[in-house]
């Protein structure tokens, strides 16, 4: 348990951020992040390289979050997921960027095709390299870069200054 506890302690923020990046809902992200850790705990024996835990749990939480998002989108009739609740711990958005601008960006992120949105939000996580995002998404690194470029281009043209 102590080894698992150390892994949870080291990766909880990142796992939560991946879940939140996909779901845009703090409560849902918490559920999914917790489920991801429990799945990892149950399957810990199948992990041959413990040093790969971070990438491994990243892929687990991403898949779970994506499934949850799809099911939420089916269930909910609201326009966008990103217009939902805010994550806990986020302060006033007016510190550096105004709320309206953030809302527009949120809306546009949500309108991106899933493949572009996934890459954009994963690569926005602190310390997330393109190679790691590629591993999580099970696509080549070059694909991550090209999708990231397309996503940025789309946002640049859709979110007017």
């Amino acid at each position, binding site marked *: 348990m102590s080894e698992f*506890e150390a892994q*949870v302690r080291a990766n909880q923020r990142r796992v939560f*951020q991946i879940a939140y990046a996909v779901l845009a809902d703090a409560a849902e*992200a918490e559920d999914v992040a917790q489920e991801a850790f429990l799945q990892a705990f149950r399957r810990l024996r199948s992990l041959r390289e413990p040093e790969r835990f971070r990438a491994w749990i990243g892929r687990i939480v991403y898949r779970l979050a994506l499934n949850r998002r799809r099911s939420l989108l089916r269930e909910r009739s609201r326009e966008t997921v990103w217009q939902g609740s805010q994550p806990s711990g*986020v302060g006033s958005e007016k510190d550096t960027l105004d709320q309206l601008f953030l809302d527009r960006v949120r809306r546009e992120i949500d309108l991106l095709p899933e493949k572009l949105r996934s890459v954009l939000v994963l690569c926005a996580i602190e310390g997330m390299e393109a190679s790691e995002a590629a591993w999580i998404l099970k696509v080549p690194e070059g694909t991550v870069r090209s999708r990231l*470029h397309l996503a940025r281009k789309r946002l*640049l043209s859709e979110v007017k200054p």
Partner: protein
Amino acid sequence: MKPCPEWEEQLIELVTNAFGAETNGAVREHLARCARCTGALDELQSHRERIDAAVQRIVGEAEPPRGFLESVLQSATEVRPKRRHWAWGLAAAAAASLVLWVAWPHPEPDAESLSILAWQSPTAALLRSPAETLLRSAPRLGESYGNLDVALGEQEEGVAR
């Protein structure tokens, strides 16, 4: 500031880092001569940075709620890591089968069973003819009569009688 229409797309590509050095060089050459496009590029660059900051803020500031670690660890104590139950089950079934087979009474065959086992078809009896014996015992090409078994003659006589 609006850029030259024919260069607008290239400027967007430039700020989203899509082109290689050669293409960037062509755009740079134009920028060196065009103040309008230079101004537009600065605006685009600044706008892209603002969007990137917004995306990073939306995703990156999500923090796991208080008590998340404890909650995960508590849940983990309630589940056990998956073991290979099927492997143990298979081994137990194999051991039980072996014990059952050894312990199962194996009765001696009775006279009727032995007679059935000893039964031979009439065709088999017909095949035991002097000609067949001769064919089997005759030397093949390259063999010598000197190797002929001395007892063979006696057997042949017996068969003939």
